[in-house]
């Protein structure tokens, strides 16, 4: 049986163009970009070209792009960095995050609050993709506020109304952070269109290596570094830069953005077909966030009549179909997803299975996924 990978929202392979772009910087052009000599200058040139390339893909200025080591680091730097800068001004600010944020934002916020660096608030999100703007306004009225709302939710594929939120935050003089890990290359992410202040992105969801990422910091947004060392990345993220990684990331972002519309159309058609085939073959299933605007690459399914969603993922694996429960982050944990809890309530009886599509996904893969899901769900319901 051909293995069927439908977990591109968890991670992706490095694409050939990215690998080719990186290759010269892994051994041939190896200099430290901070060095004075020719080796260093070559590396620095590559790094700054990558920065400019990435910035252009987002509609940003090169000075607004900081290279970091992945999405979690980027989220943490945004939240802790912003709190640190507020603290320097003697403020105890508010962080208001949506109820469906990634753990990197959720846990960082809890930690910030635990340390007494900020108060925190939750912004309600409904299954049809509406965000409680009153919650946001209430937070903004409380004083200096960082609002953090992800652009595309990783578990459900829901696209959150960042444009609307950005206007509200911007009008009130607040700061908006958005995790764009699942958004870049899937929906239009352009900082000229949306006045977000901080964006956290990662490479490995878009065919760049794991451990690559960026933080967009709009000029004038105060941020305190969280690591201390050699002053690289304008002091915001010290540590010798991963030049090859930066080049790979910039290449991946450029390609993802360039291919967004065509690939989005292709994936939407595939995803819709998968969705209708599953709805036709199984009863008692639900498309999570089905009424909301959704990114093209994710289908999150709620399956009723199954006691244990993690067993469904394992059983599909044994059928050669790789999918996730909600996110891929915890080691076999049966802990209920906070995202589905926020959208459908804590006692929601549906188990979640997330299919996520990518550049190598074909109709045949999806046909196999449907067959395997029907087999496995049937067996589990009979058990």
């Amino acid at each position: 049986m051909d293995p069927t990978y439908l977990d591109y929202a968890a991670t992706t392979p490095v694409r050939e163009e990215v690998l080719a772009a990186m290759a010269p910087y892994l051994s041939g052009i190896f200099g430290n970009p901070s060095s004075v000599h020719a080796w260093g200058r070559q590396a620095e040139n590559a790094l700054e070209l990558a920065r400019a390339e990435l910035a252009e893909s987002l509609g940003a200025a090169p000075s607004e792009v900081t290279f970091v080591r992945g999405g979690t680091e980027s989220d943490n730097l945004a939240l802790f960095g912003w709190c640190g800068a507020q603290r320097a001004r003697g403020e105890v600010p508010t962080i208001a995050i949506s109820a469906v944020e990634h753990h990197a934002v959720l846990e960082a916020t809890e930690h910030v609050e635990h340390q007494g660096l900020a108060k925190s608030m939750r912004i309600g999100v409904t299954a049809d993709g509406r965000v409680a703007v009153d919650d946001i306004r209430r937070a903004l009225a409380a004083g200096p506020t960082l609002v953090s709302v992800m652009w595309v939710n990783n578990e459900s594929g829901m696209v959150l109304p960042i444009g609307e939120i950005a206007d509200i935050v911007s009008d009130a003089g607040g700061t908006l952070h958005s995790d764009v890990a699942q958004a870049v290359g899937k929906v239009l992410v352009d900082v000229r269109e949306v006045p977000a202040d901080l964006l956290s992105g990662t490479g490995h969801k878009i065919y760049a290596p794991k451990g690559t990422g960026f933080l967009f910091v709009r000029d004038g947004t105060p941020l305190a570094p969280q690591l201390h060392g050699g002053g690289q990345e304008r002091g915001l993220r010290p540590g010798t830069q991963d030049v090859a990684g930066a080049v790979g990331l910039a290449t991946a972002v450029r390609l993802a953005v360039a291919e967004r519309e065509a690939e989005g159309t292709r994936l939407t058609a595939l995803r819709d077909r998968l969705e209708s085939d599953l709805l036709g073959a199984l009863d008692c299933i639900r498309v999570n966030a089905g009424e909301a605007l959704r990114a093209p690459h994710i289908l999150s399914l709620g399956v009723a009549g199954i006691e244990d969603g993690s067993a469904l993922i394992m059983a599909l694996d044994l059928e050669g179909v790789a999918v996730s429960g909600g996110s891929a982050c915890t080691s076999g944990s049966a802990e209920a997803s906070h995202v589905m809890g926020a959208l459908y309530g804590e006692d929601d009886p549906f188990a979640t299975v997330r299919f996520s599509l990518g550049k190598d996904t074909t109709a045949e893969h999806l046909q196999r996924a449907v067959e395997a899901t029907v087999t496995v769900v049937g067996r589990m319901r009979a058990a």
Partner: protein
Amino acid sequence: MSRVLVAMSGGVDSSVAAAILVEAGHDVIGVTMKTFCYSDTPSHGKTCCGLDGITDAKRVAGALGIPHYVFDVEEDFTRDVVDDFVHEYAQGRTPNPCVRCNGNTKFRDLMRRGRALGCDRIASGHYVRAAHDETGTSLLRGRDHAKDQAYFLWGLPRELLPRLAFPVGELTKDEVRARARSLELVTADKPESQEICFVPTGDYRDLLRKRLGTHPALEAGSIVTSSGDVVGEHAGYAGFTVGQRKGLGGGSPEPLFVLEIRAESREVVVGTHDELFRDEVQVGEVNWLTDQPPVGAAVRVQLRSRAPAVTATVEAAGDELTVSLWDPQAAVTPGQSAVFFDGDRLLGGGRIIAARITAAGGSGTAS
């Protein structure tokens, strides 16, 4: 298709169990049960079933080329095993959580989840043997009597027996280690786990304090003799078990042992070694893995995990039963198991509710 789920703790026994099944050509799936959250206890890196156990099990499964999954059973385990453990100590009894886990949690969960994965058999690294004949399946003590673990399995649901496999039950521990070494399994020389998996600090009283808070079981009480004389004070009866030698200071003429724990009055009763003996044992929560022996039948009963079985007569039978020991035994401990055998064959067992002495001038009951 015969697909076997093998419970891999990350120890050498279950590693070799998995290897034997793979060699025999079965479609094998390894699982490790995540039983308890260790996040607020310091890591000592030794215990099975913990996250280190998961890592080792994954490495072995990878080397054997089989899938491996983690089953998060923390909720069931906490309710059925940890809460029971705490409750038993609070009542002045001495629980046996491994018995409880095997009988109530581990194999039931494995079977239920295994079915979802298309598995019709469950295997583990226990040193017992499953014998199949025309009367059904019964469990026999492991070939290596020094490592035999039949005592821990009396609580299994009988209907599961035909679906169980214990590949190392025919081997000695030395053979298991040799097998693991020849396969270059990472767990080959891993030390035995000794402590209770959810008490990694080795002191169960820490867990009791955490889960009970303020409770009479953890408050000071009197140490009394069987005739009622107060001879000292203790810091909480949950720290005692029947049969435990109790140093009282003050130079008593002969060593004293805990005879009984009286939860209602918080008294720990002590006496001489002679006073420890009991010959009638009341057993509750009885579970049979074979047909129930009739009243009057002679059986062998094992009263401690490392004690030899002794002969007894079944006096009254049912969900609770009473057995008379042919020879009085020391330190028959409420909360521990009474496990019945016919030779090597495991018949069943139950929890010891109480024991008393009927012959030869003993004193009182342990209840």
